[in-house]
């Protein structure tokens, strides 16, 4: 029983294309996140949603648009992909906004832009 799932796990695409990554959690959590892990393994928050409402947008280019159709899903749409967008993108969820509760991470989506 996967707690946080992401699709696809791998995504290879060309510059200028538009792509989406889907995330679903079956933990009943209210808060979901997107993190980006760059080529040096550095992890940084991109977005945080609580009860389908955007809470944090951490200076992410507006080519990135998250969408939360319901509390169990947080999708990431990326327009006009650039080489620098190549990274691993992690979805995560927690029972409450980040605090004492553990964040559960999905398996990650490795995006390669050529």
């Amino acid at each position, binding site marked *: 029983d996967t707690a946080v799932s992401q699709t696809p796990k791998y995504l290879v695409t060309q510059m200028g294309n538009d792509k989406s990554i889907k995330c679903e959690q079956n933990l009943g959590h209210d*808060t979901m996140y997107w993190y980006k892990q760059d080529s040096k393994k*550095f*992890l940084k928050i991109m977005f945080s949603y609580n009860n389908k409402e955007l809470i*944090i947008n951490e200076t992410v280019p507006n080519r990135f648009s998250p969408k939360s159709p319901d509390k169990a899903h947080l999708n990431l749409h990326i327009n006009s992909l650039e080489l620098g967008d190549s990274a691993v993108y992690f979805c*995560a969820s927690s029972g409450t906004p980040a605090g004492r509760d*553990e964040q559960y991470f999905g398996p990650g989506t490795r995006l390669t832009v050529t």
Partner: protein
Amino acid sequence: AQTVTQSQPEMSVQEAETVTLSCTYDTSESNYYLFWYKQPPSRQMILVIRQEAYKQQNATENRFSVNFQKAAKSFSLKISDSQLGDTAMYFCAFTYQGAQKLVFGQGTRLTINP
């Protein structure tokens, strides 16, 4: 702004040895939480251990324990009787009540040699 620093990019020890990974952080918050996450080659992020700042007692989870020095803003992870399966990237992470995100250190790549 909160920052997390891991000063050891890489470490390598023999199986069954004890190893300590360092982490320091900077914050003006008083109600905060610290975590160590493990990322094996599978890419999955796995919570290893958690420490609440208000607790003076150091957290332990089986072979994993922390040395939390609040005044020094230090949060090191000790792995006892290391096993081959402990080979992974280890990330120190910080959050505070209401932060809505985790702030990660740069990571330490730990290799356990047979």
